[in-house]
């Protein structure tokens, strides 16, 4: 029905999150029909990004420069170090625009199922960063799952000798959340973490 190049494009697009074979076909057609306005700029952008993308040696973030823009931003607070599971979590925190400290990307969580042990989390680098005199607080922003919290507790144990405050994200009622629709665990966590008005 279509040429080999287009089939290959559809095949690759179908591997992106959120796209299946049918939606990839629609996206491919959309791009082809907008060759000048979309397809060529997208292809150039992808090629350029593929050539320039780097993993920040300091925090593990993706950027076209190393160290990344967050690590070199002099406006940020060196005293706050936020530990996240992956770059997606880092981007989520950046989206909130509430945190102006530095990050440390673990690249995974302790997981027997995925075969990730402590040695895979690059703890030496985290320990070295947390031991710097400028760091006042390490914030564990790992998921509120058994694996996420097990990892946070493990890291807290390992960092217990560093002269820093160790903290974790709060758990409770999400913005716009109605209690009737929340699971029992979240309601319990919210009650335990209640604050004075």
């Amino acid at each position, binding site marked *: 029905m279509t040429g080999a190049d287009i089939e290959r494009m559809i095949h690759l697009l179908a591997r992106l*999150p*959120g796209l299946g074979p049918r939606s990839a076909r629609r996206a491919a057609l959309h791009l082809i029909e907008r060759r000048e306005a979309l397809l060529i700029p997208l292809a150039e952008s992808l090629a350029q990004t593929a050539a320039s993308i780097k993993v920040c040696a300091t925090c593990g973030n993706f950027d076209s420069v190393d160290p990344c823009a967050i690590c070199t931003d002099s406006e940020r607070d060196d005293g706050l170090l936020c530990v996240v599971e992956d770059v997606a979590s880092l981007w989520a925190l950046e989206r909130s625009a509430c945190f102006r400290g530095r990050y440390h990307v673990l690249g995974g969580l*302790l997981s*027997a*199922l*995925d075969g990730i*042990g402590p040695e895979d989390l690059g703890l030496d680098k985290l320990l070295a960063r947390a031991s710097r005199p400028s760091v006042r607080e390490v914030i564990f922003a790992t998921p*509120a*799952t*058994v694996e996420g*919290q*097990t990892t946070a*507790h*493990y890291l*807290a*144990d390992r960092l217990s000798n560093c002269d820093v405050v160790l903290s974790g994200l709060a*758990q409770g009622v999400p913005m716009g959340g109605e209690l009737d629709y*929340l*699971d*029992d*665990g*979240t309601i*319990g*966590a919210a009650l*335990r973490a209640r604050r004075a008005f």
Partner: protein
Amino acid sequence: MVEWRDEAIVLGLGRHGESSAIVSLLTRAHGRYRGLVRGAYGKNGRGVLLPGNRVAAWWRARLAEHLGALRCELVDAHAARVMADAGRLDALAAACALCEAVLPERQAHGATFESLTALLSGLEAEAWPSIYVHWELALLRDLGYGLDLGSCAATGANDNLAFVSPKSGRAVSLSAGEPYRDRLLPLPGFLVAGREGDKDEIRDGLRLTGFFLERHGLTGGGAGLPAARLRLASRFGADPANLEN
């Protein structure tokens, strides 16, 4: 169409595609079962499919040997209650990982379901480490490798029991076992006295049960104890038992 409904405890889950997961459950009547949960990582699955949580499960498939589709509704959020406590969380993760490692699929293990339910409730108690060691003993018993801690294997006496034979899994009294101390496993007193164990006794208890779980190859072809169980053991300084032959 084949289907069942049962009470279950979530043992673990692995991502399948973007939002689905293959979930492993320990059910009351059907044993350890896997199934595909669609939308497990979406809004509805969040907070429900965490290891240790008790759920009402509904499994259905076209043929019995298929993976099948699962739907789960939260009954008791055990995981959320222990998440803030590192030790209790390690115990919950270790228990789920052990069940996942040692229980055969699709064979009913009602006794283990009951004991795991009791353990998950008991994790909120102060004596949770003792409850955990007792749970591992119950797990060994349900698998057919129960330890006989009622009387001395050598003398038949039932007082001053201090060791366990690594070969027979039977208790040995202090006087009979003293000459062979290096070849025997210490038997922590709380396991026979019905009281709470201190930290050293918990360490010995975890060494004892860990030894037999590994020795009987229950953790799967020399794979050793699950990482979560090793983390729990290291919390009490319970390195694997090292016995002279």
